[in-house]
């Protein structure tokens, strides 16, 4: 049987890969995908902890899954706005390299 610790370690590894992608990539689309990966890792930890609590308590427990449901909805909203912003930046500056998007730097 698989212990909840394995799921937590996998979740930490996936979160780290997402953070690494945010740190080293210069393409905002891939940075965005890395953020989605981090959200997914957190969701996996939510469901694993919820399952563990459910087995400890011996009765159904849905709070972890409902949090994941809300996270998925928020991620959908975030992607809609974020991709619209990326398209606008591309139309204005004709590039998506985030090193060249520094107009606020002065």
């Amino acid at each position: 049987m698989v212990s909840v610790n394995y799921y937590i370690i996998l979740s930490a590894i996936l979160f780290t890969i997402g953070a690494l992608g945010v740190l080293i990539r210069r393409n905002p689309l891939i940075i965005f995908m890395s953020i989605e990966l981090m959200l997914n890792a957190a969701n996996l930890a939510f469901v694993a902890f919820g399952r563990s609590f459910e087995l400890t308590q011996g009765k159904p427990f849905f709070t972890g899954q409902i949090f994941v449901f809300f996270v998925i909805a928020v991620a959908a909203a975030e992607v809609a706005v974020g991709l619209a912003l990326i398209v606008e930046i591309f139309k204005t500056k004709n590039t998506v390299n985030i090193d060249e998007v520094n107009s606020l730097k002065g």
Partner: protein
Amino acid sequence: MTSDLIVFILLALIAVASALGMAFSQNTVYAALYLVLNFIVVAVFYLLLGAPFIAMAQITVYAGAIMVLFVFVIMLLGVQSLPPAKTLPWQKPLAVVLAILLAVESTYLLLSRAPLTQALAAPDASANTTSNLQQMALALFSEYLLPFEITSILLLVAMVGAIVLSKHEKKAGSGNGLG
């Protein structure tokens, strides 16, 4: 080594490999496809954890809607691969060191604060029947009704925001403003 553990390790290897492929692939379309694979593997993990509704929502919303939007934007902008830009020389080593630190620390903190060593039972038949879904819906629409409604407003705001961001103002005098 039990069969459960073998299945878990194989799935975890696929998940980590596809996540690494996403983070390091030079072609944005490949990265999107790797991420779809990762989302599907995580959906299988949800099934193993006895959360069938979340698994299906993950596949329809994440692997379906969100990634289609990503691929659509990649195709629209034509940025399948960026020319290699000059980066700071110390950025990658520093990022790798910081990421390893993050992995070690988060694993240590999560495991030390929650020392749960009991095995997770495989989902029994009750996890896949409609009663499980009914109970979750009851919790969602009674205890979590207010967050649910706020989420619907958030989605509406995001939709209006996306439309406003991508709408182009007509020059003054060239239209009646209804375009």
